């Protein structure tokens, strides 16, 4: 673990998290406090490159479903105390890789370790107890538990969770209280505090995502693996949450996250790993990604630098329509065409 949690950095980041603060600050902030970024600065942008202080090391992991190779990663290291973005086209194998690393799925071959400890044979809860906690892309809200209970469940090392001690409230009351406070803090950050006594099953899609992430953080993991945490989350809130994630990094947490929103990826990741068709096809600093042709082809598409401008879109649209017209003329039956015109 990085020895220096850099109080100054933490402070800076916290103020950074408030909405409305200049976004550029993240990119330009002084590097020294950000250990991971500093450490990764000199690492070459090569697939499978060794990191100075890897928390997770993956070797030769493959997973096939029938004829489909979902994951085939030769070598991958994840820097401790850094935020590693994992991107790649849909079906690239990101979620499957998460499943494998956290024991939810068994690979065909391969080994991986956390802090030098082989995780291969461990079951999901053992992995989680070592401090590697993940979230799910398709959220798993514990529907008939309240939001607060969902949160409390995330806390680790609760003595009240053992059968016998559960019967002696004295042994867990204090801990429970502390946990509740911490949970409320997190809920406030995630804008869920008003919902604390509602059943998690009654949350909206985005709120579930938030809860899922907050719950994972509740366990104070060493490594947190977030599977598309921001998909479906309101952009304003996303922004403030990113600040929180950065805070966590300052506290020494290792974050791996899957995300399709390149703005987010660029904003917070120290290192980006790109997967396609199960393989890692590139890794490097965030800036490196849009320069990599393979990545652009496989993932970002032609307009990778920024979202399409309206003009661009209009142009594409016009092209499309021309193509469509051409296609229609020779492919589609006239009946279909008539129908469509008639409806207009």
């Amino acid at each position, binding site marked *: 673990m990085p020895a220096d949690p850099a109080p100054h950095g933490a402070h800076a980041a916290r103020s950074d998290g408030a909405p409305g603060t200049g976004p550029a600050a993240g990119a330009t902030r002084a590097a020294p406090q950000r250990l991971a970024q500093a450490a990764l600065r000199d690492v070459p942008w090569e697939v499978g490159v060794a990191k100075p202080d890897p928390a997770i090391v993956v070797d030769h992991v493959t997973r096939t479903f029938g004829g489909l190779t979902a994951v085939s990663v030769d070598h991958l290291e994840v820097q401790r105390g850094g935020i590693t973005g994992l991107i790649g086209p849909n079906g690239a194998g990101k*979620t*499957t890789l*998460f*499943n494998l690393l956290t024991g*939810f*799925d068994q690979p065909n071959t391969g080994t991986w370790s956390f802090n030098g400890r082989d995780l291969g044979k461990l079951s999901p809860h053992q992995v989680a107890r070592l401090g590697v906690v993940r979230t*799910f*892309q*398709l959220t798993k809200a514990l529907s008939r538990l309240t939001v607060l209970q969902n949160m409390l469940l995330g806390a680790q090392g609760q003595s009240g969770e053992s059968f016998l001690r559960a019967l002696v409230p004295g042994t867990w009351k204090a801990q429970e209280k502390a946990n509740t406070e911490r949970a409320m803090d997190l809920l406030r950050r995630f804008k869920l505090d008003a919902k604390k006594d509602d059943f998690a099953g009654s949350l909206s899609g985005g709120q579930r995502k938030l809860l899922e992430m907050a719950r994972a953080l509740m366990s104070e993991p060493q490594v947190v693996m977030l*599977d598309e945490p921001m998909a479906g989350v309101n952009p304003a809130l996303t922004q403030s949450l990113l600040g929180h994630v950065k805070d966590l990094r300052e506290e020494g947490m290792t974050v791996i996250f899957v995300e399709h929103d390149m703005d987010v990826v660029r904003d917070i990741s120290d290192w980006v790993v790109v997967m396609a068709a199960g393989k890692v096809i590139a890794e490097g600093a965030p800036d490196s990604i849009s320069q990599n042709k393979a990545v652009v082809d496989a993932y970002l598409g032609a307009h990778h630098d920024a979202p399409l401008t309206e003009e661009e879109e209009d142009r594409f649209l016009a092209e499309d329509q021309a193509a469509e017209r051409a296609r229609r003329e020779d492919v589609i039956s006239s009946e279909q065409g008539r129908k469509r015109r008639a409806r207009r």
Partner: protein
Amino acid sequence: MAFATLVPGVASAVGEQVRGTLQTSLSGPIEGISVEVATPDGDVVDTVQTDEDGRWEVDLPGAGQYVVTVDPDDLPEGVELNGEPSRTVTVDAGRAQPVNIGLNDGSRNDGGGTIRAVQLFVDGLRFGLLIAMAAVGLSLIYGTTGLTNFAHGELVTIGAIAAWYINVQGGVPLIPAALLAMVVGGVVGALNELAIWRPLRRRGTGLIAALVVSIGLSLALRYSYQIFYGGFSNPYADYQGQRAKSYGPFTLQDRDVASIVIAVVVLVLVALMLQRTKIGKAMRAVSDNRDLAASSGIDVNRVVLFVWVLGGALAALGGVLLGLSDQVQWDMGFRLLLLMFAGVTLGGLGTAYGALLGSLIVGVFVQMSTLVIPNDMKYVGGLLLLIVILVVRPQGILGSRARIG
């Protein structure tokens, strides 16, 4: 007073006696065999010859032990003593003790030419097919609505009972009666859905509450049957008393053959319908995701209604076929329920093919297990198999495992 009219029975009041009959089922009564009765010390009490009915009897001087010996030399061709020629029997005071020496005409343990394992297998197949037919509806209803319907057995019963009334009371031949029973089954299924389950679904009743409602419904229906139909078992008027025909290693009654054929044909048709037709796909879609199905233009209520009608009709037909071989009873469906559940689950919940496969396995295994375990535990084997299979394949035989994450 009734007692006064008693004919003094063989067993009392005549003084001590030993008596018996020598005969075999093949040779008939055996006449002229000499039987000697002596005390254990060897004092001969009397020696008699069997009469034309094969009977013999010897009056005894008193209670006590006696040795009865048969002279095997005169036994006819093919008949021999099963064991020793003599037996020691204890005669109580005043009792005419029958003595049975035991002859062997070679017919014992000869099994009538069938191979037991094969016979049991075939019986099991037949049974399994009937379970399957009754259970398809259970599986489909579970699939489309998530309801674990404990009242499904009552749909089976109503089919059998309806056919019985139409056939026996109404004098209609069984085949049209069975068709009518299917209609009744379908209608009852539809009523189930329209009167109970649809309103409950509309009110947002949970699945477990619905399960308990089905338990209540099952109770109510079952005992209504008992009130109206009675507690007895009754056969249909037709196709009774058939002898089993030999098919080499196994035998079957004609009606069993017919049941098998009907079941196979119907099940294949159902399977094809599920796989190929629009409504079949709609059923599977509804079972996956009701709201999304509605959003695709499927009239969910109509599909569910169709499932109930189909399930009810099939259950009814299953009931009729079951009643044909094992008579009609007010609780016949209920007693089958566990096996239906077992079959449906074994194959993989909610999959129609699974229900078929699972039911067949259950049926066959229940029968075949009697080769090794006592008959009164025959279900144990089937249930054990169920457990073993599910432990090895937690998603059922044809079920597929859901992806995580």
